[in-house]
């Protein structure tokens, strides 16, 4: 939005369609450089031999809207910075406090457990749901139904209080003798309860995401794999799953980011994750807003890192999918810097 209107490239030369000189020659002819003059052949009759200069269209409303947005942004920034009630010095003081860092680490740990276990469960449930065995398929449907229907916070409380329902957990022959028993309290502490609750809940959603991914793959792919005699598990993991990942990754990214913040519900089990820790500190110090800001900043940081990871993961699974991927922002930046260094003339024109 901050681009001055003079440098807005014409529609034909947006960055996506630009063909930089550093790449190998593309199959299609590269688009005309935007500053090129019209060759005489295209000139109207009577002006042969005379090169005509192209004047790009002006977009006055872009300038107006850009200024309006800039003013609003400046107002927001000023409101954040100048009002002492935000207590920025206190935010700085607590942002890297050891207890907060520990809480961030614990949040990450819960998220990782929830996502890894959740997607393992989800993949199994999705494969069951797609299986030709009606019993497996119904059980998978029932799983998804149950764990999607009960609110996460209730599920967590059930797991937390499992010892009230079953004092002992026995391992042995089903309905037969047991080999050994463990007290439920010892086996399922609050952290385990939280991990199990998050994973089972996440598994139900992951199952649907994985199933959607599998359904998005052209049935001809399975047919070709079967015709080639490729073994069944290999068909699933080598042929179908990598193609399904294209549909899975964006929605899975949503889920992971949702879970980073979703872990904050485990505060009801008094587990020292980020949000709970922030509350503990502000209850003691009274710096409510500052600590809420600290938590918000950390959630922002975690989400940013995950979003960047998702971007590269999507590119990985897009290989062979589109004719040519646009450059990553980093590659684009490197190209601009290299072009500037080479030509010695700064400005956007030097990057083309």
């Amino acid at each position, binding site marked *: 939005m901050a681009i001055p209107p003079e440098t807005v490239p014409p529609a034909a030369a947006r960055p996506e369609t630009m063909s930089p000189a550093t790449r190998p020659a593309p199959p299609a002819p590269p688009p005309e450089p935007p500053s090129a003059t019209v060759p005489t052949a295209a000139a109207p009759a009577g002006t042969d031999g005379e090169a005509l200069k192209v004047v790009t269209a002006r977009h006055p409303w872009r300038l107006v809207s850009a200024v309006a947005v800039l003013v609003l942004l400046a107002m927001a920034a000023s409101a954040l910075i100048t009002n002492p009630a935000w207590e920025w010095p206190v935010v700085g003081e607590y942002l890297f406090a050891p207890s907060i860092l520990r809480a961030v680490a614990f949040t990450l740990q819960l998220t990782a457990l929830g996502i890894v276990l959740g997607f393992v469960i989800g993949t199994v449930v999705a494969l069951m749901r797609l299986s030709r065995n009606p019993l497996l398929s119904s059980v998978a449907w029932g799983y998804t139904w149950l764990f999607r229907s009960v609110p996460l916070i209730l599920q967590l409380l059930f797991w937390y209080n499992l010892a009230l329902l079953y004092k002992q957990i026995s391992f042995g022959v089903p309905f037969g003798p047991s080999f050994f028993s463990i007290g439920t309290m010892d086996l399922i502490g609050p952290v385990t309860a939280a991990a199990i609750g998050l994973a089972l809940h996440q598994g139900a959603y992951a199952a649907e995401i994985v199933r959607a991914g599998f359904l998005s793959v052209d049935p001809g792919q399975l*047919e070709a794999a079967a*015709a*080639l*005699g490729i073994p069944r598990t290999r068909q699933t993991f080598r042929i179908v799953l990598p193609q399904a990942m294209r549909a899975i990754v964006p929605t899975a990214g949503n889920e992971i980011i949702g879970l980073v913040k979703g872990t904050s519900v485990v505060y009801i089990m008094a587990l020292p994750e980020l949000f709970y820790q922030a509350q503990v500190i502000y209850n003691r110090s009274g710096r409510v807003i500052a600590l809420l800001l600290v938590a918000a900043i950390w959630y922002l940081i975690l989400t940013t890192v995950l979003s960047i990871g998702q971007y590269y993961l999507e590119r990985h699974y897009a290989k*062979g*999918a589109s004719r040519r991927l646009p450059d990553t922002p980093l590659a684009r930046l490197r190209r601009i810097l290299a072009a500037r260094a080479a030509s010695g003339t700064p400005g956007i024109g030097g990057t083309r």
Partner: protein
Amino acid sequence: MTRPMVELRGVHKRFGALEVLNDVNLRVGPGEVTVIIGPSGSGKSTLLRSVNHLEKVDRGSVLIDGELVGYRRAGNRLHELPEREILRRRARIGFVFQNFNLFPHLTVRQNVTEAPLSAQRRPRADVEELAARLLDRVGLADKIDEYPRRLSGGQQQRVAIARALALEPKVVLFDEPTSALDPELVGEVLDVMKDLARSGTTMIVVTHEVGFAREVADTVVFMDAGRVVEQGTPGQVLDAPRHERTRAFLSKVL
């Protein structure tokens, strides 16, 4: 006649009330090229797909080189084989699809080597060398590390043919291999298929390319409404058809 490479005996197949294959009998000798023609919906593709057990037949049997594809015979019963065994037998039957069905996330090389490595468990070095040789044969040696979507339709179909040949199949089945191609790309695929036919590959080809049938087929089979109406040499079936339905069909496509 020597033992046929492919033999269909009294094959029946129905989808609901529709009789798709009605008492089909077919013998294809080793090294022979059989071209199946007929109007759409006549059961050509189903016939081809039942040869490698992508479709199960309701009655009758399909033998490849004297061996049942999807079943084990015990007395008068046919027991369906476990999937692993079907996959193993199917690996000796090449199949080329109308829509290529190349694996888009794998390179041309990986497309060709995947099945020999995972289904036949042959050593990688041999398979890599075989892939290079086959891609050279279909004229795509320089595309070995490309992804399929960066190739033209004709090139993709030639990769698909190389992929089918990599299993060193006893027979290669072609299901309308040029129907999804732009007209100017049909020739390059047919050239590869003619080359295969001349080198003694056993082939069953479902196609609308009557010119191809005339040039390379040993046997032309005309199907209509799930039945083999007539079969014979290209001269017999294409130039002097005995049945009215064959004449009517040929007058439309020629």
